[in-house]
């Protein structure tokens, strides 16, 4: 069996091999091997998800990949940016009468000839990028954790070496770091000469290779995408833009990078022209392994935007603040302060932060509450509006993933923000709004100057509008568009009411004299974050009598004011839900409904005064 933990992390393939051999002995025919994963997942899952074992696995999101020894177990958190086709590979073969597996490996040197009895298996390829817009406080616990992890000696060695970036050194280091393989020599990876020669090739690889990362890192850090190979149907419920945490074997086969293929000419001599035509389409072969590490997924789990909590073990006990009302109030105070003392806006902002799409009926997305705060001054000389910066800053502290997008002519005209398919490369070219669910988007409309919008600009605005209205993004597949559901709360900051972007709520900002600075401690932030997560996860219902009350109230409101249409009622109902949820109440109470009406009343008044 698996042996000591260290082996799992340092030499996962060894463990796989052991399990494989074991099931080989039990299997009657090689085909039996396809039916199970030989207990690999089970073994790793028990080790990883018990006692935070997963935190000991080095993460490759931050820090140079070179630092991690090849063929060791690593962790990667990312968003599924593109899904490639199924890859067929030789899963098991015989060499000199003994079965070997190349599962969880990029390639294997399978002796050609029928005596190898190669077994064809398939795996799914996913292109994952670091989670767009992830805020640094979410990342930190991970990276700090990794560095303090009591790691195997090979690992620290790898790190040390990795800093020196010579190719020669690196491959040497990797060779040295190669975990002692307890299996037959056949399983040895390509090293030495191969690695050296091809890593030179890699260094000359196309520099303009598009890595398809939706948002560049604010800290200017280099973001590393990953090509994740998923086995055994673990991808079943994986969707585009899902955020996953992958535990897998980091493999690096320099021969698979584009250049090496070029050097070798067309790979398969007897494929001729045809072969090369096929290869053109094979994306995975064109992504240089040095830029896009390959990850052989052993196990993976989806993480939602609220999952960061589980990763801060030390604060976990304080997760449930008993007097959440106080937490709510303190958060409100903080928001009020950040919005220049506007308490009403703070209330709306709080509801807005809690909003998420909870159901879709026909094309309508229920539960969204986009907010437009007007009266924000543009920043001087093209700088973003100070209010936008402040708001985005606050939000980035509270919500795990957020992004501030200045709507300047330049950014709008620059590139399409909606993803589109490039059939030349057969990849989904990302756009700035390919965002995982729950990512908050702040649009700074004050950056928009008078000027000409190009075709791209107009399309981009349409995309944003569509997102605001339906919470859907149309991905351009050239021959048709495909709507992808999104759940991206949008806050629009503008000078006057935004005519371009239709939001659910429009509220003129009314900053009063700023109060004294509020002292924020880390523990405040942490409890707020937990409060938001908790509130967002709340279930909500409406009992019979309250339903009547609401209905009656709506009818009488409409009798009084004919301008109240279904849109406004939608808003009220959404707000009522959010309001209840913000008090962590599972059902709507009359006073919350009244609060909503009161808020709306004040909001309407403010609008009238303008």
């Amino acid at each position, binding site marked *: 069996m698996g042996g000591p933990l260290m082996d799992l992390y340092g030499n996962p393939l060894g463990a796989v091999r052991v399990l494989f051999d074991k099931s080989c002995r039990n299997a009657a025919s090689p*085909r039996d091997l396809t039916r199970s994963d030989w207990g690999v997942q089970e073994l790793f899952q028990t080790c990883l998800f018990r006692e935070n074992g997963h935190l000991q696995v080095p993460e490759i999101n931050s820090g140079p990949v070179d630092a991690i020894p090849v063929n060791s177990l690593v962790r990667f958190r990312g968003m599924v940016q593109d899904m490639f086709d199924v890859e067929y590979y030789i899963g098991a073969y015989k060499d000199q009468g003994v079965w070997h597996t190349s599962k969880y490996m990029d390639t294997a040197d399978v002796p*050609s000839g029928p005596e190898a009895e*190669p077994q064809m298996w398939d795996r799914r390829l996913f292109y994952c990028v670091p989670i767009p817009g992830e805020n640094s406080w979410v990342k930190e616990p991970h990276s700090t954790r990794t560095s303090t992890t009591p790691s195997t000696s090979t690992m620290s060695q790898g790190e040390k070496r990795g800093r020196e970036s010579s190719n020669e050194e690196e491959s040497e280091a990797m060779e040295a770091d190669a975990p002692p393989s307890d299996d037959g020599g056949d399983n040895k990876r390509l090293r030495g000469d191969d690695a050296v020669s091809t890593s030179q090739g890699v260094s000359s690889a196309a520099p303009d290779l598009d890595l398809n990362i939706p948002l560049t890192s604010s800290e200017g850090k280099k973001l590393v995408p990953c090509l994740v190979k998923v086995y055994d149907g673990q991808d079943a419920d994986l969707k585009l833009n899902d955020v996953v945490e992958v535990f897998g074997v980091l493999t690096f086969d320099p021969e698979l990078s584009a250049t090496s293929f070029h050097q070798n000419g067309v*790979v*398969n*001599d007897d494929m001729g022209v045809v072969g090369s035509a096929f290869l053109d389409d094979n994306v995975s072969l064109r992504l240089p392994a040095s830029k896009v590490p390959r990850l052989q997924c052993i196990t993976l789990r989806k993480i939602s935007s609220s999952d960061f909590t589980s990763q801060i073990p030390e604060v976990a006990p304080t997760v449930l603040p008993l007097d959440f009302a106080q937490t709510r109030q303190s958060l409100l105070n903080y928001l009020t302060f950040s919005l220049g003392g506007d308490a009403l806006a703070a209330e709306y902002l709080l509801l807005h932060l809690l909003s998420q799409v909870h159901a879709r009926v*026909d094309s309508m997305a229920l539960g969204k509450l986009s907010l437009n705060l007007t009266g924000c001054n543009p920043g001087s000389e093209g700088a973003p509006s100070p209010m936008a910066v402040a708001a985005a800053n606050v939000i980035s502290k509270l919500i795990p993933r957020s992004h501030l997008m200045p709507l300047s002519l330049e950014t709008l005209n620059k590139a399409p923000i909606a993803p589109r*398919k490039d059939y030349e490369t057969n990849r989904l070219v990302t756009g700035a709004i390919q965002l995982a669910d729950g990512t908050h988007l702040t649009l700074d409309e004050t950056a928009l100057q008078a000027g000409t919008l190009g075709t791209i600009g107009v399309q981009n605005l349409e995309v944003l509008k569509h997102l605001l209205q339906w919470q859907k993004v149309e991905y351009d*597949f050239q*021959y048709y568009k495909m709507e992808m559901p999104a759940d991206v709360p949008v806050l629009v900051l503008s000078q006057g009411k935004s005519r371009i972007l239709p939001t659910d709520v429009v509220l003129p900002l009314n900053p009063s004299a700023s109060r004294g600075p509020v002292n924020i401690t880390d523990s405040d932030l942490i409890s707020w974050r937990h409060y938001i997560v908790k509130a967002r996860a709340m279930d909500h219902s409406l009992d019979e009598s309250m339903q009547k009350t609401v209905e009656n109230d709506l009818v009488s409101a409409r009798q009084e004011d004919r301008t109240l249409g279904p849109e406004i009622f939608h808003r009220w109902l959404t707000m009522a839900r959010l309001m209840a949820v913000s008090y962590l109440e599972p059902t709507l109470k009359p006073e919350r409904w009244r609060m909503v009406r009161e808020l709306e009343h004040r909001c309407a008044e403010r609008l009238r005064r303008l």
Partner: protein
Amino acid sequence: MDNDDAMDIGAASSPLPSQSEGFPGVSTPLPQVTSPSAVSSPSRATRRTPRKRGRENGTPRRRRSRSRSVGNPSYGSPGTPGTPGTPVATPAYHTPIGNVGTPFGTPVGTPSFVRGTPGYNQRSELGSQGRRVRRRRRSQSREPGRRSPSREPSADGRPTASAEPDDNVGGEYAYVWGTNVNIPDVLRAIRRFLNNYRSSSDDLDSKYIQLIQETVEREEDTVNIDMSNIFDHDPDLYNKILRYPLDIIPLLDTECQEVALDIRPDFEKHIEARPFNLKAAVNMRELNPSDIDKLVSVKGMVIRCSSIIPEIKGAFFKCLVCGHSPPLLSVVKGRVEEPTRCEKPECAARNAMSLIHNRCTFANKQIVRLQETPDAIPEGETPHTVSLCLYNTMVDAVKPGDRVEVTGVFKAMAVRVGPNQRTLRALYKTYIDCVHVKKADKGRMQADDPMEADKDGNKEGEQERDTEGDSSDAVNEAKIQKLKELAKLPDIYERLSRSLAPSIWELDDIKKGLLCQLFGGKAKRIQSGASFRGDINVLLVGDPGTSKSQLLQYVHKIAPRGIYTSGRGSSAVGLTAYVTKDPETRETVLESGALVLSDRGICCIDEFDKMSDNARSMLHEVMEQQTVSVAKAGIIASLNARTSVLACANPSGSRYNARLSVIDNIQLPPTLLSRFDLIYLMLDKPDEQNDRRLARHLVALHYENYEVSKQDALDLHTLTAYITYARQHINPTLSDEAAEDLINGYVEMRQKGNFPGSSKKVITATPRQLESMIRISEALARMRFSEVVERCDAAEAVRLLEVALQQSATDHATGTIDMDLITTGVSASERTRRANLVAALRELIAEKLSPGSSPGLKINQLLEETRKQSTVDVSLQDIKNALGSLQGEGFVTVHGDLIQRL
């Protein structure tokens, strides 16, 4: 069985044994050994091509040797041993592993093949599969039993399971390798099918014998074989074809060729059987390793086509020294073995052989990338793609954007480390070698010619475009039956209207109107060439927040073909068509705009009022003539745009002003307005009942017990199917009574204007409205799947139009329908009011001002004065208009707001 005997003869008669095809592919279940000296065995002989084929095949008769690497070892040819030509380590083939293709069972490329065995007959899409073509002289045909065994010493690669060559060759013991599929049995089964299958019991001739006859007569070389026919006739054979296409499809070819030769003994082409219409098309994402080397059928959309790849099939060399040319060398493993020395003994010059390109033979090949169609993609995933290899006649049959259904063999090909390395990458590339491509037009609405599908279904030619018709009929029969049952429901009309945008409450009449639009009327073409549109155009005008856009979105979703566009962003060219220069070729290209793209569909235009006048004027032609004309950059074209227009607009003041006339509210040119069959005003009327329903609806929506309200409505899918079926198959005609009713309704509508004792002649309805009524009643009949427009349809059509007209053309001054309002923008009563005002003003001015005197009169003063006198409300604009006409009369002059009498 006569096959065997035929082979026999083929062998005997083959003039040039050395020309027999090489079957380099290891994986071929078929004979591989074809060394010239090989003694002919029956099976081998079958595939031998007589010499002249070589010539004829100067046109790419493809066989593809490269695919050898892809072969499926499971059917590896065990028969090879013992044949002199194949020294290769044959045992290798004896290790078939289930269905796992071992693409690299390649060692067989023995030189002996390479020489002198041009595989002319290989069928490209079946990889290295040898194509068996038999030439048979019927006069000589004998029963197999009579065949002299002495002529077939070796089992030359015929996939016989048994190794003993002599006895059972061609006998009952020839099996597809690794299976218990007996080849002679299969051949017999195929022959039985070809001979006996009749599409209907009263057909005299077998369907396929007829088809082959047609093929022969047309000098073509393909026969499409509907697999559902095979299934009906012989499910066992069907399954065999599905599971062992590489082996059995060549047998199909053989048998078809046999039949062809029966029909015309000197038929020289080689018939290829093209099976299609499998019982179940696989979803692209469900393909998995177990499908490798199976016959699969996949639907998708073509996204990329490679250029045509000429694949060299036979290489022609010439000695530069003596001019001697050896016979064509066949391509083996994608390579041609270049002779190192001239084979002429007296020359024997070294390295003097040069390839003469224009005497080589080539085959066409194309690689196409197929992507899942949008509807097959689970939500939140990206489409899968698969590569296709198309050959010969299939090349260029499809272009990007086409929806196709292909039938072919799913193959995998190993990726190799290097040309000469023994080891393989542990990776495969997969692709489908197509045997049949069918373009599908599924889901498009075909209003005009729904029956264009050939009922018989089996037209010759590769790209037969049987749209709906035969293929889907069998499969969809049940579905259609269900739709028909739905149609019988008495409340189907109500039910349909409930199913349309169920999340939008009320608005029943509008939904009914939209339904009519979706179903559409019948387009008519009279002999003189004039045509009448069947499309119904609808305009929704309403207050913001009356869910117009939602309705639009919904309709857009249902109409399989249609464009959703916003008036604000659209330009005239964006809607119609524009001319551009292709960046690569510099050719002028006509690009279609939204309207052309939604030909036979519905073009939804949101924010119609925001559209520029210029863009809107383009719609005139589209909405009545249903064409778009372009005259630009040397291109003069008229494109079909048989589209219904569904537009929605806000009233001019963004909110409907009840005090203004409808026209003033809509603010659209009357010319355009009259082209809409139905104009709905979506007004927000204060009504507590309504409000309550709205409130309940919304609350329910938000709190998820909403499904209740959805009961007995059709789901989106059924609704779409229902509409599509109706549009395709139902072409109602007016019954006499219905026609009578429509006429009466129309006359009544026209007379309404004359009603309550008013002397003013108000035109109530125009002939356009009569046409609208006809269309609407046809659409209503379609909803019931009725071929006849009944009186009830007519009555409902009149009612719908009245409802729409009442809202849109009520002259609020008189309360009657006033079509004049729509056509000229000014109602009859409005016109009298204006005339009255002018008269009143004239009097007033005459009273206040003397000619030429100054100072004049301010407009504001005038307005006040008029208001004092007038009982009706007079606006400044009215005054200005009236002054305008007075000025025209030369009665006054107006400078700024100062009025002076002349």
